[in-house]
């Protein structure tokens, strides 16, 4: 238990130490590359902004991710249960996923002018639903017939089979996808925050750092983003432990 917490902390300290050393050895000034020791002052100076913007970024990401879970699961169920829907939707989904989402920013900001919150949530959603849809779809379509038959032979309805067998059986795959989606959703949120004029959130803070040539601020934003990403990731792991902990086999 001790080493489980100590190991990552030591790894982070070593990482920061190497970074500091790199900047110091090269004699890089602040406008080229900030060093870890510049970060605490930057955080302190803008502490209120960080809290406010961090919260903006976090809630939009979580809402976008939440939408992605719902829509992704529904799409996954459709392609998992119906062959025809699978054949019809897969090319569309893959095509949509292949579009670099940055190119969609001007499209949605024109469609929904001034709706900054909405646009940000929408982008977080669009960038993150795909892994969920695919994993649920594959999980459902590859369910072994025998699993279905143990309940079907008793005359159970399709809905019962879904709730009692198909859904729990896909949970490990679902959470695997959710971990990927959680980080993707952050990218979506920040993309819109950075690109939009008059944006809010950590992305906007990053941009203001850039405009003002405040390099320590920019790096501090990156660290804050990384921190939020880690928090969200571990929140997913926590949920996974609760709902799909059975899939985690202990080494025997």
């Amino acid at each position: 238990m001790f080493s489980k917490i100590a190991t990552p902390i030591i790894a982070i300290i070593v990482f920061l130490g190497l970074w500091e050393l790199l900047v110091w050895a090269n004699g890089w000034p602040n406008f080229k590359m900030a060093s870890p020791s510049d970060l605490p002052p930057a955080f302190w100076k803008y502490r209120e902004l960080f809290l406010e913007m961090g919260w903006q970024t976090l809630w939009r990401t979580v809402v976008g991710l939440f939408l992605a879970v719902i829509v992704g699961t529904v799409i996954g169920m459709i392609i998992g249960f119906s062959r025809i829907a699978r054949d019809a939707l897969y090319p569309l989904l893959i095509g949509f996923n292949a579009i670099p989402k940055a190119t969609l920013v001007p499209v949605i900001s024109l469609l929904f002018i001034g709706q900054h919150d909405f646009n940000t949530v929408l982008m977080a959603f669009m960038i993150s639903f795909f892994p969920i849809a695919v994993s649920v779809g594959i999980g459902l379509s590859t369910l072994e017939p025998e699993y279905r038959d143990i309940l079907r032979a008793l005359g159970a309805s399709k809905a019962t089979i879904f709730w009692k067998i198909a859904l729990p059986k896909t949970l490990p795959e679902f959470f695997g996808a959710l971990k990927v989606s959680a980080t993707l959703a952050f990218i979506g949120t920040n993309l819109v925050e950075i690109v939009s004029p008059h944006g809010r959130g950590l992305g906007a803070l990053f941009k203001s750092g850039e405009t003002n040539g405040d390099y320590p601020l920019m790096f501090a934003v990156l660290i804050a983003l990384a921190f939020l990403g880690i928090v969200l990731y571990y929140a997913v792991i926590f949920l996974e432990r609760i709902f799909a902990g059975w899939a985690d086999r202990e080494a025997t």
Partner: protein
Amino acid sequence: MTVPEGTFAAVVGPSGCGKSTLTRLVAGLMTPDEGEVWLHGERVKGPRNTVGMAFQNPVLLEWRTILDNVILPLEIVAPRMPRKDREARAMELLEMVGLVGFENKRPSELSGGMRQRASLCRSLVHKPDVLIMDEPFGALDAFTREDLWQTMRDLRAAEPFTAVLITHDLRESVFLGDQVIVLSGRPARTQYVMDVDLPADRTLDVLFTPKAADMLHVLRDQIKIAQGREVDH
């Protein structure tokens, strides 16, 4: 083919002849293109909850404990049965197959033979009239398999049910069956029926008697015929 109520029919036949298909027809999971299946004077048109099924894989649900796995059919067949009664019923069966003490373990913590025992409990928990088994002991090692034959025999002595057992093990068919039905190659026909007149409370020793040896010999030849091979005498 006919299986009288309360008796045990062992079905053997060449690989791919349609044995699994037969179990799915009897269970009502498939409807026949031709012919009919009757259970207790009623034509089988779809699944019915008086049937129990067991497969070669134990197909236990990893996220449930052994006890909850065994209870599963009761949740469908007897949704209003109190939890306490369900547990009592499941424990009764787990005790018969020697799994007391494992009821709160996950399937992954059990050996293959134990999982198959739990699977048998699950197929019997709702007291089905008919138990349909598709090679349930096929993936087990020889000793575990013989253990489970005896468990099967004891289960049937404790709670009578009609049984259809698909198997590729002739000794298993003779030890467990009241009759052994040999199917021909695809499309399967009933090629040969053997009545096994061995005592009901037979022990494994019975397989070493000359009588059993003769029966096994006859069955062996019938399988060869079903496979379309020469019988060498």
